[in-house]
């Protein structure tokens, strides 16, 4: 193996050396939360029901009787504006993987859609709904609720937020970590293509700068196979970690599992990744493209070495392509190896602090200037037309679905002999007038909804959609402060969430749009 300098590798790429590109990808807002993490730290994330708070693929709360609920929400705003069907579908795929990565079987989806009231907005809505339906129906996870609003503030930035929740036995929870030296890094699922290269950065920029090629292609059938295979794996003790290849793809997933393992064990863990073993679908892919591709329906499994054959056999049973792409080491370095035939072998060791730079970005805290556009709920008929396209009953748990009015859903959890109540906020127009009052109102709405249905609130997840930080970070800070205060008073922790900044076009930022989803349980009647 020959170590080459950054400059040598530079020739293979465009202008920048690889580590710089990688560090840039990892330092994007979407992966590093550089503008928001100091605010997010204020949110309470623990109480006696919380098994896993933010920082993993999904948050997990205890349901009792050995069962737990995984919960997460994600935005797919930018891709949905550029390529609505694909953007929305891959959004659903991503959030479902976040759930079954934890070993949980997804049992419900919610979608929150915000569009401009013009023709473009209506066209986008149609395509987005079709995207969600095509994906969710095929995978067999019911869309049990959500809402749709029109507002001119979203003319150039639609919002597509999807929440998902799933059931897992407590003993089967899988975390996104690599803990043991010598264990396998297994790649499973779709082949790596050029689609979605740079998607994470896309979510961190204004829409004006973007292209279609950064939106990924969806494959719900493959997702279904992955889901079943991963749920079966969760029942075994063959794996010690699972991680979805989402934002910043292979690079992020392989390095993140090791980083989490380093934090948990205190050991000087590292990873070796053999890039030439990655199954690719496009010819002549550059190493950097393989590392950053955001092709969908791919998972990274950290498998015990001694169970390697059994794991591979299980994937074969589900007709999934799997291969060992690397190994967990004890040298504390993240090493990429690219040893193509007839070329010089390349080894590039990097330090973890180089890949995960602790970046911060401060913005001037300006007070939010309210906008005047109308915030209108979708009319009854269109609403009905939307949920008719979703299979909202598959799984036969839906007790109260989108067929009845109300910002909540009720699902049967016969495993623990209880009912799950999921409530969500809407009417974010109040956040436009006053971000503090808006989020408090949203929280109170969810909380009182659960209380009125005699459900005990367990936790919440939030998707914070804001405009460009230069004018919206003040509103963001106010929102977090308001939410933190309410959460503390009511003892409802934030167990997961997502931040979407840069929902802006030119100098126009969208109204602050925080979406809350609160879950609770009640006894069966």
């Amino acid at each position, binding site marked *: 193996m020959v170590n080459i300098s950054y400059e040598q590798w530079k020739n293979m790429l465009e202008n920048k050396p690889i580590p710089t590109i990688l560090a840039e990808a990892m330092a994007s807002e979407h992966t590093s939360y550089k503008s928001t993490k100091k605010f997010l730290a204020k949110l309470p994330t623990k109480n006696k029901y919380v098994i896993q708070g933010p920082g993993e693929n999904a948050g997990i709360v205890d349901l009792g009787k050995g069962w737990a609920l995984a919960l997460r929400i994600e935005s797919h705003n930018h891709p949905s504006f550029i390529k609505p069907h694909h953007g929305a579908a891959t959004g659903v795929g991503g959030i479902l993987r976040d759930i079954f990565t934890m070993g949980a079987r997804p049992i419900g989806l919610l979608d929150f859609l915000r569009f401009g009231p013009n023709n473009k907005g209506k066209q986008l809505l149609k395509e987005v709904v079709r995207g969600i339906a095509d994906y969710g129906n095929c995978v067999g996870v019911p869309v049990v609720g959500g809402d749709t609003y029109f507002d001119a503030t979203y003319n150039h930035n639609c919002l597509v937020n999807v929440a998902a929740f799933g059931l897992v036995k407590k003993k089967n929870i899988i975390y996104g970590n690599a803990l043991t030296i010598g264990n396998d890094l297994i790649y499973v699922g779709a082949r790596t293509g050029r689609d979605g290269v740079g998607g994470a950065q896309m979510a961190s920029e204004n829409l004006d700068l973007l292209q279609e090629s950064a939106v990924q292609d969806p*494959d719900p059938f493959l997702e279904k196979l992955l889901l079943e295979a991963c749920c079966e794996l969760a029942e075994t003790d063959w794996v010690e970690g699972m991680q979805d290849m989402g934002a910043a793809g292979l690079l992020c997933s392989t390095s993140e599992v090791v980083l989490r393992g380093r934090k948990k064990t205190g050991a000087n863990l590292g990873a070796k990744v053999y890039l030439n073993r990655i199954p690719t679908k496009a010819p002549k892919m550059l190493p950097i493209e393989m590392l950053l591709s955001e092709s969908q329906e791919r998972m990274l499994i950290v498998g015990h070495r001694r169970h390697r054959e059994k794991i591979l056999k299980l994937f074969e049973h589900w007709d999934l392509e799997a291969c060992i792409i690397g190994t967990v080491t004890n040298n504390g370095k993240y090493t990429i190896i690219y040893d193509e035939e007839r070329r010089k072998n390349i080894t590039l060791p990097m330090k973890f602090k180089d890949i995960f730079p602790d970046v911060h970005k401060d913005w001037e805290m300006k007070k939010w200037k309210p906008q005047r556009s109308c915030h209108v709920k979708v009319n009854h008929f269109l609403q009905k037309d939307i949920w008719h396209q979703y299979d909202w009953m598959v799984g036969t748990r839906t007790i109260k679905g989108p067929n009845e009015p109300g910002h909540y859903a009720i699902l049967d959890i016969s495993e623990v002999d209880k009912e799950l109540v999921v409530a969500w906020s809407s009417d974010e127009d109040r956040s436009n007038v006053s971000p503090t009052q808006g989020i408090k109102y949203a929280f109170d709405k969810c909380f009182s909804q659960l209380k009125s249905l005699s459900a005990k609130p367990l936790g919440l997840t939030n998707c914070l959609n804001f405009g460009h930080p230069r004018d919206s970070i003040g509103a963001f800070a106010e929102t977090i402060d308001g939410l933190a205060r309410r959460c503390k008073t009511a003892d409802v922790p934030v167990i997961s969430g997502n931040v979407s900044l840069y929902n802006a076009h030119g100098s126009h930022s969208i109204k602050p749009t925080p979406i809350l989803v609160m879950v609770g349980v009640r006894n069966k009647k």
Partner: protein
Amino acid sequence: MHPFKKKMQVGIIRFPGSNCDFDTFNFFKRFGHKSRFIWHKDTKLPDIDLLVLPGGFAFGDRFYKKATAKYIIDPGAMALGSPAMQIVFLAAEKKLPILGICNGFQILVKAGLLPGRLVRNVSENFFCDYIKCKIVGNSFFHDEALQNKIFIVPVAHGYGKYVIGKKELQVLEKNGQIFLKYANFNPNGSVDNIAGVSNKDGNIFGMMPHPERSPDGKYFIRAMEKYVRK
């Protein structure tokens, strides 16, 4: 369940992409019957009283020559290539009762075990809601007690429009093979509001609505119990 009633042994075929497999399993379990999954690569017909092809998206509703290559959307077509279809044909030959629900119905039609064709809904959209259905013809598994009854049976499909030639339709009507019709709302544009048909021998039944999701599920179970006991 009644103590002296015989437990039905139900075989449920699981194709990759079947997503009502567990719902169907639990449906029979709820009424005290024993189900087992048959993987689509199995070829041996187990000792069962009833064979079920559940709903879902077998092979993602796709038809392709190579998994990584281009595909067309044609629900049920790909499943015909599964080894487990040997089990279905053998069961049909042995006159075992077979029930196809939603995607299972599509597969049975594609396999030529049931008449007609199922095509894209008129709306060109997926449709899911509770729907009222009426039992007609020779009834569901010939259960006279259900005749002319109306039940709430949810539908959830994008390719559920039943089409058939005029002459064949008359034959079906005459033989009483059409056993289920949409009662007050046709969600997909099916000919003559047809929601379910059986074969001529009356042992293979296919329906687009989902009895396993129905609040009236027990009536469907009872009909199958009666048929199996005979």
